[in-house]
C-alpha cells in the first residue's frame, strides 16, 4: 500500500495511503473426485536444445530433420520435466553466454512502427511520495466526459491514516463530489509531471474522483495512460495486408502498455500471443543488428540527424496529441496559475462552468435545489477560488501577531518567573538551618 503525498484545494498537503482495490474471484482446479491439485513449474527445454544449437550441431536444417525422424535429439531425458524453483532472469549474448554488464536503449517507434529515436534507457523516479506533494492542478474534467475521454486502466483508493487526514480527505472528496468532476493530479515541482509509483514503472496521468455519503467518503485515484480515441491508423487505407496479430498479444518488453504490477492481457490471451510478441521483438532486434550503420549514425555523429528527425516526428505527434488533449492545453494555464494562484483558480472555475453545461446542466440544477447545501452550492464555486487567497493572505497576518502576542506573553512570564529564583535563597536558608540543626544535633 503506497503512500501518497497529496495537496488539497487550500494548498495543504498530507501523506495518506493509496490502497489497491482490484479484486479477482479465485478459481482453483481440482482433480478427479475433487482431489486437490497444485501447480509446479517444469522444464521443457534449454538453450542447449533450441533450434539454433541443434542446427549447428547437426550441420544444417536437413540433417537436423533427419535426426529428428531418427531419434529425439531435442529432448534431454535426464533433465526435461524436472521441477524448477528459485529461478532468476539473466541476459545472454549471441554466443549464449551469461552477460553481467549490459547497456539498455529505448527504441521509440511511431504508431506506424517507424523508428523515431533510439536513446539510453531512462528510469523515471517515483514521485508520488516525495518531498513535493502531488499538486491540485485545478483542472476539473466532468466525470461523464472523463469516462469517455480516458481509459482508466487501474485505480487506487485513497484512505486516511488518522483523524486529521480523515478530515483532509473528506474535504477533498466533498469538493470533488460537489463539482461532479475529476481533478487532474500532477507531480513534480511544476505540477505537470505524470505519476510514477515505483522507479522505472509506467507513468500515468492521475485523476482524483470523490464521492461523499454523510460522514463516509470515497476518494479514487484513476490512472490512465491512454485516451479513448480512434487511432489515425484505422482511417488510413491498408497499404499491405499485415499478418494478423493475436487479439490480446503484446510484446514482452514494451514499456508503454500495461499498468504497474498488472498483466492486463494475460487472462484472455491466446496461447500463441507471447510467441507473436517474441517474433516481433526478434524482428526488431534483427533489424537493429542489420543496420549497424544506422545505429552508429544515431549514436555518434547523427545526434544532429536524430534531433533533426525527432523533433519533426515528435512535433507532429505532439501537435496531433495537443489538439485532442485539452488537459495538456489546460496544464500550461496552471503553470501560470502557480505564479498567480488567485486568478488561475478563477480561470479554472470559469473553465469548469462551460464544461458542466455541456455535460449535464439540467441534472445539476435540480440536484442542488433539492439536496444540496442550499446556500453553499452557489457560493462555493465562486468562493472556491477566493478562499485560497483569502486564507493565505490572512494566515501570515494572523500568525504574526499571534506570535508577537505569545512572545509578549512569554517575556513577562519570564520576568514574573524571575522572582522564583529566590528559591535558592530559601534553599540556602534551609541549608543554613540544616547546618545549624546539624550543628545543634
Amino acid at each position, binding site marked *: 500500500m503506497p503512500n501518497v503525498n497529496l495537496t488539497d484545494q487550500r494548498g495543504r498537503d498530507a501523506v495518506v495511503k493509496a490502497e489497491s482495490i482490484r479484486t479477482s474471484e479465485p478459481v482453483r482446479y481440482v482433480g478427479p473426485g475433487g482431489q486437490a491439485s497444485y501447480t509446479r513449474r517444469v522444464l521443457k527445454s534449454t538453450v542447449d536444445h533450441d533450434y539454433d544449437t541443434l542446427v549447428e550441431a547437426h550441420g544444417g536444417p536437413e540433417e537436423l530433420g533427419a535426426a529428428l525422424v531418427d531419434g529425439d535429439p531435442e529432448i534431454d531425458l535426464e533433465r526435461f520435466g524436472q521441477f*524448477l524453483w528459485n529461478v532468476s532472469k539473466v541476459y545472454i549474448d549471441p554466443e549464449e553466454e551469461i552477460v553481467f554488464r549490459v547497456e539498455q536503449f529505448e527504441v521509440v517507434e511511431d504508431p506506424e512502427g517507424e523508428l523515431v529515436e533510439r536513446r539510453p534507457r531512462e528510469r523515471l523516479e517515483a514521485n508520488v511520495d516525495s518531498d513535493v506533494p502531488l499538486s491540485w492542478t485545478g483542472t476539473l474534467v466532468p466525470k461523464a466526459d472523463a469516462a469517455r475521454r480516458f481509459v482508466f486502466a487501474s485505480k487506487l483508493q485513497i484512505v486516511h491514516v488518522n483523524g486529521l487526514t480523515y478530515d483532509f480527505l473528506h474535504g477533498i472528496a466533498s469538493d470533488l463530489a460537489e463539482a461532479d468532476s475529476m481533478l487532474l493530479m500532477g507531480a513534480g515541482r511544476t505540477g505537470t509531471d505524470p505519476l510514477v509509483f515505483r522507479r522505472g514503472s509506467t507513468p500515468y496521468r492521475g485523476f482524483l474522483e470523490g464521492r461523499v455519503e454523510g460522514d463516509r467518503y470515497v476518494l479514487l485515484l484513476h490512472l490512465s495512460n491512454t485516451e479513448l480515441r480512434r487511432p489515425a491508423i484505422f482511417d488510413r487505407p491498408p497499404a499491405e495486408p499485415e499478418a494478423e496479430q493475436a487479439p490480446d498479444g503484446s510484446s514482452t518488453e514494451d514499456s508503454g502498455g500495461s499498468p504497474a504490477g498488472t498483466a492486463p492481457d494475460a487472462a484472455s490471451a491466446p496461447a500463441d500471443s507471447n510467441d507473436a510478441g517474441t517474433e516481433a521483438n526478434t524482428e526488431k532486434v534483427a533489424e537493429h543488428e542489420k543496420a549497424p550503420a544506422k545505429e552508429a549514425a544515431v549514436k555518434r555523429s547523427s545526434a544532429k540527424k536524430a534531433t533533426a528527425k525527432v523533433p519533426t516526428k515528435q512535433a507532429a505527434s505532439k501537435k496531433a496529441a495537443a489538439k485532442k488533449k485539452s488537459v495538456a492545453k489546460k496544464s500550461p494555464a496552471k503553470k501560470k496559475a502557480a505564479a498567480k494562484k488567485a486568478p488561475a483558480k478563477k480561470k479554472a472555475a470559469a473553465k469548469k462552468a462551460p464544461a458542466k453545461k455541456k455535460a449535464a446542466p439540467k441534472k445539476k440544477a435540480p440536484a442542488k435545489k433539492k439536496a444540496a447545501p442550499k446556500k453553499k452550492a452557489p457560493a462555493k464555486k465562486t468562493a472556491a477560488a477566493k478562499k485560497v487567497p483569502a486564507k493565505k493572505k490572512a494566515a501570515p497576518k494572523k500568525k504574526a501577531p499571534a506570535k508577537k502576542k505569545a512572545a509578549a506573553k512569554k517575556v513577562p512570564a519570564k520576568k514574573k518567573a524571575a522572582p522564583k529564583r529566590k528559591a535558592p535563597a530559601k534553599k540556602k536558608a534551609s541549608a543554613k538551618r540544616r547546618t545549624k540543626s546539624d550543628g545543634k544535633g
Partner: protein
Amino acid sequence: MARSIEFSFGGEVISAELLKVERQKLYGSISVDTRTLDGGACSLVTLASDGRTLVPHGGTSLGYLNQDGHWVPRSELVPVDIAGRELEQVPSSFSAPIELSEECSLDEFLDHGIRLVYLLGLAAELAPPLAETLAAGTIYKVGFSYRGGVGTDPAFLLGDGDSNVWFLIGDPHDVEWVGLEPTLVGVDPDEDEHPDSHDAGDPLDFGML
C-alpha cells in the same frame, strides 16, 4: 482480420468488427533494446537454480499434480470456487449475440479498471433507439468471454461524442465507503458481556493506578 461480434438490442441484432485499440496505435511504442558493451544483442532467459541451466523463452511450463505428486491432465481438472463449488463454463461471446439489457451507472463503470479497449467497426449505422441511448450517455454492461471458459469479464458498451462506439473490457474493483470508525485491534466487541465490564465504571478511579 478483425473478429466480428454481435449484439442484440430490442430484438435487433447489430453486427460489428472488434478493432483493438492499444496505446501503441495511438502514440507509438517504446521498446527496450539490451546490448552487451560490445554492441551484441542480448536476450533474456531464465537461469535455473543450479546456476548453469539456461532456459529460453517458452522453455518452461506449468503442470498440475495431485497430492501424490502424479501428473493430472488438464482435461481432468475441474474449476471450483473458493468454497469448492464447481464453476459453470460459459461459451465464447462470439458464439451468440450479446443481449444489451443491463444499463450501468457512471459510478459503477468507474469502479472498473479497463483492461482491453475495442472500437466497434459497424457495418451499418446503428438503429435509432440504440444510437439515441448511447448518445444520451447510457452505458451498457455485459459479460464477455473471448474464448469461453470459466466466468466472464465485465464489459461495457458506450458511445463518445464522435459517433464512435466502444466496447471496453474491465476488471471489477472493490470500492468501499470509508468512515472514521476506529479500527481498534484487540478490543472485545462484546465488552458489555465481559465479567469485569461492570467494574470499569469510574473514570476518575485513581486507586487503580
